[in-house]
């Protein structure tokens, strides 16, 4: 059954069971997000997609749409908060865009551009994170991990492998790999896995291929993140 709610004044239709972000994407309205991916169960952890529903903040990827909801998204206040969250993600890890292969195709970077982030603002944490280059085909650069858990969900729910998981707590939360050695080479991971394709940043990378697309022709060079189709995300 179809109903509607309003999103920044615009009437948005939805069907029962749809979340706010699903209904918004279907109506062609972009809500910034990083841990949300239309093909996976929502996680609700990055909080970038937070909107105000009837005046109260809530993550739009986990909140089901309801008839008559008044949703605010593109306001100066909410975008300032989203910008601060993006800055937090930048200082938490080690994100050096100019030398990163994912630059131009990175959702974190594209979101920062979209939100008008001009600096990291906070002091960098500069965490010490080792790189895992053990696997013959793929490289894991944990420096860039934003803990969105998309690879965890893809490996578990699509590939049926559980190659990835999260361990630790708080600021020490980190991605782990399903092997006693902790090394990707000792798992059954392959480049054909869904998990190899969903990383929104530059953690899971194909080896022996970098900077293949010239500057100017990369994904977000051509169109900002707000205009790219949901289903192509992470490719």
């Amino acid at each position, binding site marked *: 059954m179809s109903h509607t709610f309003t999103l920044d004044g615009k009437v948005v239709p939805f069907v029962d069971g749809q979340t706010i972000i699903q209904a918004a994407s279907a109506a062609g309205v972009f809500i910034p997000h990083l841990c949300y991916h239309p093909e996976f169960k929502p996680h609700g*952890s990055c*909080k970038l997609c937070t909107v105000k529903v009837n005046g109260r903040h809530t993550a739009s990827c986990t909140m089901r749409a309801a008839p008559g909801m008044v949703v605010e998204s593109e306001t100066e206040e909410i975008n300032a908060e989203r910008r*601060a*969250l993006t800055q937090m993600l930048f200082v938490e890890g080690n994100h050096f865009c100019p030398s990163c292969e994912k630059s131009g195709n990175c959702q974190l970077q594209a979101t920062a551009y979209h939100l008008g982030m001009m600096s990291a603002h906070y002091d960098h944490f500069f965490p010490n994170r080792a790189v895992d280059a053990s696997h013959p085909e793929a490289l894991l650069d944990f420096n860039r991990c934003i803990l969105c858990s998309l690879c*965890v969900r893809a490996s578990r729910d699509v590939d049926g492998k*559980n190659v990835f*998981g999260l361990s630790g707590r708080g*600021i020490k*939360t980190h991605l*782990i790999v399903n092997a006693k050695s902790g090394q990707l080479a000792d798992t059954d991971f392959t480049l054909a896995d869904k998990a190899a394709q969903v990383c929104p940043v530059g953690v899971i990378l194909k080896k022996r291929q970098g900077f293949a697309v010239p500057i100017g022709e990369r994904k977000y060079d051509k169109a900002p993140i707000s205009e790219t189709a949901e289903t192509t995300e992470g490719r």
Partner: protein
Amino acid sequence: MHAEAVAGVVDRVINRYRRDPTCMLQILREVQEACDWVPPEAIDRMQAMLGVPRTKIEGVAGFYSFIYTEPRGKYRVLFSDNITDRMQGNRALMERLCGNLWVERGKVSEDGLVSVGKTACTGLCDQGPGMLVNNYAIAGLSAERIDEIAELIRGKVPLAEWPPAYFRIEDNIRRADILLNADFKPGEALLAARARAPSDGLNASNMRSWREGLPSGIGGPGATLDEIKRSGLRGRGGAGFTTGLKWEACRNAQLKAGHQRIVVCNADEGEPGTFKDRVLLSKCPDLVFEGMTVAAYAIGATRGFVYLRGEYRYLLDHLNAVLANRRRQNLLGKDICGLPGADFDIEIHVGAGAYVCGEESALIESLEGKRGTPRNRPPFPVTNGYLDQPTIVNNVETFAAAAMIALKGGEWYAGIGTKQSAGTKIISVSGDCERPGIYEYPFGVSIRQVLEDCGATDTQAVQVSGPSGICVAEDEFDRIIAFEDIPTAGAFTIFNKSRDMFEVARNYVHFFQHESCGFCTPCRVGTSLLKNLMDKLHYGSGSPYDFAEIEKLNQLLQSMSHCGLGHTACNPVLDTIAKFRPAYDKRMMQQDFTPAFDLDRELSAARQMTGRDDAGAHLATEHGGQS
């Protein structure tokens, strides 16, 4: 330990938990009790026996502070590091033990015998400083006792052979009222609840209710629920949700095939400064278990859990003995009190050092053997709780009160306290006073009254309800403890005028940073940013700019965080800035700008490595910050 011996331990533990992966945390905890840590071979075996991926086991093990996937020594000493422990001198004692044992704080000794670290409040604030040794609590530490403990460790004396006096924890009940003085015999409340049924069809209606949890209006259970509603009882864990409404929502929730209703007692008393649940469980466990059974009766639940915080591990054996005794008396098990179909039993799960598990949905995740991450809500636990079944989670004190209401009636209870806050509240008093301990008052008692009763003088401030509560200054001492004024989960931490309120706030900020679950960005990163800001002020590098930053962080955490931990993480700082501004101002070296970088402080690692701390190892600075 050899791999085969480890496998033997794992097999024994896992079989006792029926190879049930939802008992993962309990399995990890018990394997560690036998092996001193959780070695990779144990995880190999768990993976094979439980059929779950290694990432899941390591993910759970890595979440809880008290589970170690790296060796931490045969003796694992953790000093309680609440602000009250600090005030009682825990830092000097920790240095003393480290010096005695030649071990660096946070590290394992070179012979692999012992590690010394710190942990969040262990709930021994009225008899601190406290510590945990292999998760067993020791209170009232002194320099002499520290030296004795060092000797015992050096002599490799097994913990079981240490003097029993070390492990004695006092109840320190200073004022008792309807709960702590309860005139109650086990079973009485259940019989009273049953007797509330209309005389006709007593057994049939009860059986239907318990089995199927049918809506109200069918005798005993419905009448019991009505009494709880009439009493006006509100949750004692801090949030104050109306207990009757919660129970009713759970009772009315549709049961799916094969599902049952669940009663959970939240004994994960982690809020620094709170220790009243420890005393309730040690002094009147029967009252608490009876309250849970009354709840089960009222909502039609058949399974119950107590989630006991890891710091209270020492209570486990006693509590299990009480449960066994209740089973013998037919107060638990099948056909309770001879009522056909009245089936209910309770098992105890022990936490492992994660404050966030006090949040009800995180607690349920932990009960299911997962990482203690709060869930997305709705749906709420009353409809989709433990293993997706209708679940109520209530505080220890709430269940104790429910038992007394079942026994004496809702009207009796509603007549105690204030109009909006019925009944009594048990307060955990600690800090600067003559008589720290447990005080039970009818709601409506003023802060001033409590201070007078516990012998506090020259009081500067009281932190009510711990770091996530509020800091009350002298001009507010006539305010009252009640939901309509100052609600509290029970902590009442007193600071006299010699205390530095900035350091109080900084201690609390460190606590939140350590306990953030790390799930959502704002809390995971924001609590670390806040900690860094407070440390910057502490080192004398603060500027007015930092106040603006703290205020901005507060707004962000309030609006974007996933759960209450993030929402309240800035409270202690904002409260103390508003009420004790001079404590902050004296740390402002310049009003316009002060660099955060301090070259001399950066050399501290080099000083530590070379073992030097003389004047020559320091750079001369214009203004010496505190270190």
